[in-house]
């Protein structure tokens, strides 16, 4: 996550508002390990990755909503989840995410 935090700090210093999604748990084979993070700013710019591309777009949309509402969310994407098929986590595992607005 530290690589993403560098970008978050630059965005915050530029006056951007930022939401951060962090992998907090995985089951079976998951593309990224706990600690992997993705940050989104209020201009829609994205840094980092939580799934190697599989569910990034869905996570970005959730993160934009968290950015607006300010209420953190816990999300899971897995193969047994119809939604995961829709967004394409084909790797067979499950990832659990925590999405929060950065409040620095």
């Amino acid at each position, binding site marked *: 996550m530290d690589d993403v935090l560098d970008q978050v700090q630059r965005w915050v210093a530029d006056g951007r508002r930022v939401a951060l999604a962090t992998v907090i748990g995985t089951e079976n084979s998951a593309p990224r390990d706990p600690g992997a993070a993705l940050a989104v700013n209020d201009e829609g710019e994205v840094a980092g990755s939580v799934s190697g591309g599989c569910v990034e777009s869905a996570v970005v949309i959730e993160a934009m909503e968290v950015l607006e509402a300010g209420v953190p969310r816990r999300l899971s994407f897995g193969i047994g989840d119809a939604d995961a098929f829709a967004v394409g986590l084909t790797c067979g595992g499950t990832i659990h995410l925590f999405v929060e607005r950065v409040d*620095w």
Partner: protein
Amino acid sequence: MTQATAPLAGAVDKARQPWVSATVVQVERPTSARPGDSAVVHADGRIEGFVGGVCAESTVRMHALQAMATGEPVLLRVVPGEGETPPDGDGMVTVHNPCLSGGALQIFLEPHLPRRRITVYGSSPVARALADLSRHVGYEVTESEDADAALADETTAVVVASLGRIDEPALLRAVGAGVPYIGFVASPKRGGAVLANLDLSAEDRARVHTPAGLDIGARTAHEIALSILAELISLHGSSGPAASRHEAPSDEAPAAVGEAQGAVATAVDPICGMTVAAVAATLHSEHDGVVAWFCSEGCLRAFEQDPARRGGARERSTAST
């Protein structure tokens, strides 16, 4: 990622002080913490921020210090009541906390550790390519043409690629500093000749890898740099943070709570039976040279006010370790 963590995000590279971010990611009420609450756990066990009161704090402190020692993030489930639950695997741990008041908490603990350090001697094309690639791979890189200067503390790797300019003194400095990986970029013939002329024991000489790098048929400067990084990673683990994770056998079951885990000393609170970190930041008291550690002021007070409990408690504490 609330205000508590802001000053430390990024600071780890400047001060090389490890820290752990603790973020509440889920609660089952009643709890005083809310999702998004967060705290910083320092290397000495001090906690800044809020993750759910003094009871939760003692659990967070212990597991955060363990995460710092292993380098692995942990999803901590803190549930009320006594008892032990075996580790869930996949980085999840459930801990019973007898002093918690009803609700349950899930807290994500992520260690932030200093980057590993590599020093590259020389300004040859291979030296420049190696410095460049090492940064991308995640090392903190020092480029040096001065073998008289001391190496930075905790240097993981030294690669000497000065094309003869300062090869000998740089190699001697690296060997003298006990650097884990030492690579010498030279042809097998020159590499062998330079090493033979150094005033080193055969053992020390064998610590220098020359020609540096795995034999992958590298030809260009960047390919050679890649082969050197590949050798470094194959011998000394990930370029990632400077934790001990790659030295520990990965298939070994995690130690039971209550035993020493990683580099963290633990103790059992004699009043409530919780396992806590035996560090200065944890509440403790000393009687007759015996130190007792507590999860909270309440337990400390109960202990101080009841000498009979002290005796019984010590037996219990001993029996459970």
